[in-house]
Every structure is written in structure tokens, then in C-alpha cells.
């Protein structure tokens, strides 16, 4: 089924257990198809998502990264997503200074009821990344010896 | 009568060397005010004046700051190991200061002691070191206090001595050096007059005697108070050679690597039990000086210091070996005075 030589984007999605992960599950039970390029990594809360994880995804060769969790006010742990949002605002600026392509780093609020939003978000990100092409810059610098 | 070569010829030599797929390195102004030994992409990058001493040393071309020893892969329950092939690409180091060239001869001892380090030795065999005699020095230099000088030949395969006007006298000491320069020089009546170097700044023999007598000297705590415990001195030092072996990888596999380490890091001697025999900066500074001026000489007959001054130049708080030795002398003299009075 797969064609050799065609670019298949690798998307890493760090999602919170209580909202986005359940939203993804809802997409599944509703048989909403979304591209299988995404690798979903479940964490308890976006507040636990260390910015380092985004870097590690890029180190491993991810072509795009998504971080997604509960809408503000709906966090299972009350305020985890507020802390996460604040960190994201700052971390994006650092990524910009470093020259990392910000079109490949996405943040979203997707609730457990938003199976369709999950489907749409993953589909859009995958298509967008397919157009952008592989992200070789970070992988290249990781493979450089010294 | 001497053999002379021009800067242009040296640049061409570098270009030809690189053109053959070989590796060349020398002093480069990586920034307008920062000179470091760096790989040369072209002869034009080579800097042969305008600096006293580059901010780093040439040891990284023999003993890299990061080196893979072997790689491993998990295949189900099986583990596959692949030895890493040490680099054998011919290397040319052009423009090493005499204190840096000398350091390689000193490091040869420890890397061929209880284990013949093939990573080091293969690079060593593949490298030609052409040093650049000094036209000046600064307050941090003390090569003359450790038996070296601005035109010391130790460790060099050949040496360039500045004549001015983009010309250098070239003196070849080894077969490698001769092989490199044969046919590329002109005979000339000009002869280089190397400078005499800094006056003797510290009596190393006295220091060694002090180190032998007084291991528990309370002076160490005072001397090291401002030391921040970073690795700037050790990493820019031509002779420091401590390393740490770690595994880097993930569930699929990885590599065992050898990285530089510094005895000034607080965790350097941390045991798995949680005990740290060198838990204060005073103990760590003492160890550094003992290693350089007593332990290594006792073992290998060479002082583990070439007086290049990089430790002081790069130290955030102006410590470094020379200042430490001078402080040590000051304390010894003060104690002597107190005892006598």
C-alpha cells in the first residue's frame, strides 16, 4: 500500500489523559478517520508536559509536534493547563530565536467531547506538514558528531 | 641561512591538504575578538597573528571532547555491539603555540600507560603538528616557569617563526615535518630572533616541595573560595585529560561515549553510595595542582602543565594555575613568617 520514496510525515502528539486522549478515543469509537501519521503519547495533564519533550520529539525526527489538552477552566487538576499555557507562550519565543520552524509546533485545546475536532486537527496538521516536507534540520544537528 | 615560507604558501598548502580530503586545523578568528583552534575550511581562515593564545587547545584533535567507543542495538532479547572505528584521517595542525605542541608529548605518557589508547594513538600517528613561535606574551603566560618558552620545540614536527611581512622561518624537526615542507620553502639570509618569553613567574620546585610536605594545608580552602567549580580551566587546558564514560541512547539502542570531564565539578568524585571524598572546592583545587605538579611528574617524569595561561584567561573569576601557585607561595611565606616571629 505504501509507496517507496513518498514522504510520510511523522507527527508526535503529546496529549492529556482526561481531555484530548478521550477526544481521540471518541473519534475512534465514532469511526471518524484521521491520518495514522500521528503517534499519540498520553500524559496525565498538559501541566506535566515539560518543554523538553518537544525538543526530544524533534531530536527523534518528528516532522511536527502537537501538544493538546483540556480547555481553560476544564482541567482535571484545576490549573495544570493554565501553567502549561503560560509556559507555551514563553517557550515559543525561545524556539523562534533558535530558528526552529514554528509552523511545525502546534498547541491545541481539544476536549473529550471533541472527537471531530481531534480528527480535523490531526488531518490539517498532517496535510500541512506533508506540504512543508520533512523536518531535517533538527535531526541533522543531532546526527552531527561534534 | 634559513628556510623561509610565505603566508600565501601556507594558505595554499592548507587548501591543497584539505582538497585531498584530509583534515586541517589552526587558529581561527571565529568572531572578531575570539580566536580559537578550529577546523579549517580554507587556508584563508588561518590566523597567524593578532592573538596571544587561542581560547582553547589542540588536545581536542587527539582527544576529542566527545568520542563514540561502541554502539549497541537491542534486537528483541539480543544485544548487538559494534566497535567504533577510531578516526585515521591525516590531520595537519598549523599554527599551534609551542605550549600546545608540548602538551601532546606530555599527554602521550598517560595515553600509553596501563592501556594503549588506540583512539588517541591513531590520531597521533596521523597528525603533523606545525607550531608557531610566539611574538609576544601576556600576564597569564608562564611557559618559562615550567621549562618551556616562546620557541620551545617539544612536540612539534616543525615550527614557524615570524619574520614579519607575512614571512616565516620554518624549522623542521621530524620526518613528518620535513615531508610536509620539502619543496615549499625558499632559502633566505633572514633569520628569526625568537623573543625570550616572560620572566620566571613562580618557582615550581619550591611549590612541589610545599605540595609534598603539606597535604592538609588550610590555605586550600581560602584559595578556592572564589572557584565556581566549572570546567573552563580543565577544558581549555592543553594537558588536562580526565574523561567520563557514559551510555547515551534509548529503548532501541545507543552508544557508549567518552566525554571530557573536569575534576572541579562537584560531582566528579561522587560515589554511588552518596559519599564524596572531594566535597569542597578547596579539596578539588588541591587535587588539580597536586595532579599537575606532583603526581603526574612522579609517575611520568613530566609536569602536567605547559604554562599557556588558558586556565587564567578563561576562568570567570581570575583563578587559574598561576594565581593558585602564587597564592600557595604567599600562604607558605606568611606561615613561615608567623612561625619565625
Amino acid at each position: 500500500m505504501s509507496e517507496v520514496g513518498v514522504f510520510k510525515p511523522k507527527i508526535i502528539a503529546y496529549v492529556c489523559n482526561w481531555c484530548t486522549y478521550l477526544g481521540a478515543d471518541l473519534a475512534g469509537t465514532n469511526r471518524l478517520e484521521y491520518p495514522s501519521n500521528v503517534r499519540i503519547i498520553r500524559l496525565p495533564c498538559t501541566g506535566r508536559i515539560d518543554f523538553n519533550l518537544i525538543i526530544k520529539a524533534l531530536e527523534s525526527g518528528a516532522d511536527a509536534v502537537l501538544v493538546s489538552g483540556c480547555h481553560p477552566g476544564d482541567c482535571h487538576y484545576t490549573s495544570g493547563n493554565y501553567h502549561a499555557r503560560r509556559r507555551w507562550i514563553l517557550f515559543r519565543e525561545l524556539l523562534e530565536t533558535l530558528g526552529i520552524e514554528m509552523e511545525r509546533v502546534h498547541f491545541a485545546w481539544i476536549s473529550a467531547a471533541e472527537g471531530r475536532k481531534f480528527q480535523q486537527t490531526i488531518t490539517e496538521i498532517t496535510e500541512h506538514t506533508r506540504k512543508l516536507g520533512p523536518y531535517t534540520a533538527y535531526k541533522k544537528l543531532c546526527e552531527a558528531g561534534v | 641561512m634559513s628556510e623561509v615560507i610565505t603566508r600565501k604558501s601556507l594558505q595554499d598548502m592548507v587548501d591543497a591538504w584539505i582538497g585531498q580530503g584530509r583534515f586541517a586545523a589552526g587558529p581561527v578568528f571565529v568572531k572578531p575578538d575570539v580566536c580559537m583552534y578550529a577546523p579549517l575550511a580554507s587556508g584563508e581562515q588561518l590566523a597567524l597573528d593578532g592573538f596571544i593564545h587561542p581560547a582553547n587547545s589542540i588536545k581536542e584533535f587527539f582527544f576529542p571532547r566527545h568520542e563514540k567507543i561502541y554502539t549497541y542495538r537491542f534486537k528483541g532479547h539480543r544485544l548487538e555491539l559494534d566497535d567504533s572505528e577510531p578516526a585515521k584521517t591525516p590531520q595537519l595542525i598549523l599554527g599551534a603555540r609551542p605550549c600546545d605542541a608540548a602538551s601532546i608529548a606530555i599527554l602521550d605518557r598517560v595515553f600509553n600507560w596501563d592501556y594503549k589508547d588506540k583512539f588517541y594513538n591513531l590520531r597521533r600517528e596521523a597528525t603533523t603538528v606545525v607550531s608557531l613561535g610566539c611574538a609576544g606574551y601576556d600576564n597569564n603566560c608562564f611557559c618559562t616557569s615550567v621549562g618551556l618558552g616562546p620557541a620551545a620545540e617539544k612536540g612539534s614536527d616543525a615550527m614557524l617563526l615570524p619574520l614579519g611581512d607575512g614571512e616565516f622561518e620554518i624549522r623542521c624537526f621530524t620526518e613528518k615535518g620535513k615531508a610536509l615542507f620539502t619543496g615549499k620553502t625558499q632559502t633566505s639570509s633572514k633569520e628569526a630572533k625568537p623573543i625570550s618569553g616572560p620572566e620566571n613567574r613562580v618557582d615550581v620546585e619550591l611549590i612541589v616541595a610545599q605540595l609534598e610536605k603539606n597535604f592538609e594545608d588550610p590555605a586550600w580552602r581560602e584559595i578556592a573560595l572564589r572557584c565556581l567549580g566549572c570546567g573552563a580551566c580543565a577544558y581549555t587546558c592543553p594537558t588536562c585529560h580526565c574523561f567520563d564514560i557514559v551510555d547515551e541512547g534509548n529503548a532501541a539502542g545507543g552508544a557508549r561515549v567518552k566525554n571530557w570531564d573536569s575534576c572541579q565539578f562537584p560531582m566528579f568524585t561522587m560515589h554511588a553510595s552518596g559519599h564524596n571524598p572531594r566535597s569542597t572546592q578547596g579539596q578539588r583545587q588541591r587535587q588539580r595542582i597536586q595532579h599537575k605538579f606532583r603526581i603526574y611528574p612522579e609517575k611520568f617524569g613530566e609536569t602536567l602543565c605547559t604554562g599557556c595561561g588558558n586556565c587564567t584567561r578563561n576562568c570567570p573569576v581570575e583563578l587559574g594555575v598561576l594565581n593558585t601557585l602564587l597564592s600557595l607561595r604567599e600562604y607558605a611565606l606568611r606561615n613561615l613568617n608567623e612561625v619565625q616571629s
Partner: protein
Amino acid sequence: MIDQLRQTCRRLLDEGKVNVIIGYGQNSADGPAYPIFVTKPEEVGKLVWNDKCYANLATYLTRKDIKALGKPAIIVKGCDERALVVLQQESQIDREALYVIGVACDGVGNPRAAKCLVCDVHRPRFAAEVLGEASASDVGNGRYTELGEFLEKSPAERMVYWMEELSRCVKCYACREVCPLCYCNRCIADKNRPTIIDTSATLKGNFAWQIVRAFHLAGRCVSCGECARVCPAGIDLGLLNLTLARAAEEHFQYRAGIDPEKTPIIGAYSLEDKEEFIL
């Protein structure tokens, strides 16, 4: 002014108010200045103050070997004092137990360090006493000009720049040790069960380290510039730290170490934080 400084310090030691003065010393007038720790009243003559006093002495207040010396007095420039404010906010020092001697400063370095040209804290604001007068006036803007110019490069150019710069990093950690706000007993870079940051001085390890350090200083870095000054490889670390300092100011109207009453930005949040970039 130097006599006044020495007399003040002598008095503090004589009266037993402090056990150690953390200040600057110098071997000769044209040599470099460096941190010194004076514990004996008769040695206050070693203390100096001039435009070579680069070091941010606040970094010593959280170090075990210095704390063992006893109750400290510290000499600070305005930029150093900002670090004291942050340390106090983070409960790392007890300002009540610390005697702060402020020195009015016209700038360090000859030519003046870049940070001094945009300085707005020439006179320490919370010290027990301030010595000297600063003739240079506080500059209100220009803090982020260098960063702004850098960001005019395209992302690809910026990445090439950092790959070039960080290839020279040797992981000596001078930047970390000199920083007053890098005081963790066990830095994340030294963690090894499991390892979070590669200790190797490869591009991967260097990027990981500098990213972590810059981000752990978000909203805490006081722009004292010491990290960039001490880097043996001449890497412009300031660009990374200024990025986050500017983000803190633009998004949250916050500057580290200026107002001790303001809540630090990391560890806090607002319901009104902007989220136009969130899908």
C-alpha cells in the same frame, strides 16, 4: 569612595555584624578584579571598586562553601542587586540576615559592556547603604535592540547561526556556575537516573543544554550578562536569555528583579493569558 567602602566593611567586621564581606579584590591597579572574601577586619584594604568589577557576587550566596563562612555582607552593583531580589522571592536568601552594600555604578568594562549602555539600575535600590554616585543616567529602552536585529534573520539563517555557535560549546558549564539564579543542588544536566540532557558536547547535547538553561531562567534571568562574558568559546548566550526576558516583558509586563512585590511569572498564571496561537 573606596575608603568609605573599606571603613564600612571594617566596621561591620569589627562589630561582629557579619562574618564575611563578599567583595572585589585586585592584585594591581591595571590587573583584573575578582571576587574576594574578607573575614578579618585588618584585611579590608584588599577591597576595591572600579570598572573591572564584572563578577555578579550574588552567585556566592547560594554556595555551600561560602555559606559555611557565616553571616555575609555583599557588595552589589545595580544589576547584581536584581539577582538578590529574585533570590529573595525564591526564598534562597534571607535579606534580613544579609547586609547589602550597594555601589553606584557608571558601568564596567572599557569599552563599556553592552549591558551598561542600556542600564536602568545604576544605583542599587534596596541596599542597606549605597556608596558613591553614578553620573550615568538610567536608560529606559534599547534593551532588546540586539535581539531585534538578530530576529530579522530568517528562521533558517537563525538555525545556521546557532549550529555554528553551539558547535563551539564544550559543556564547561561556566555559564551555569557564574549565574546567580542557577543554584540547583543537582542540576538537570547532572541528572543521570535517567539522563534528561546528554552530557556530550555534541550539537544535540549543546542545543538541549542551552535550551534547558535558557528556559529554566525564564522570568528569572536579570540580564547581568555574566554567562556571555565568561563563555570560553565566545558564544552570545545573551540572545537566548534576552529572548525570554523580552517575552516576559511583552506578554506579562514583568522584569525579573525589579519589583520584589510582583509575582514571578513561572509558577503563576492568569486567566487572561493570551492564546491566539492555540488551535
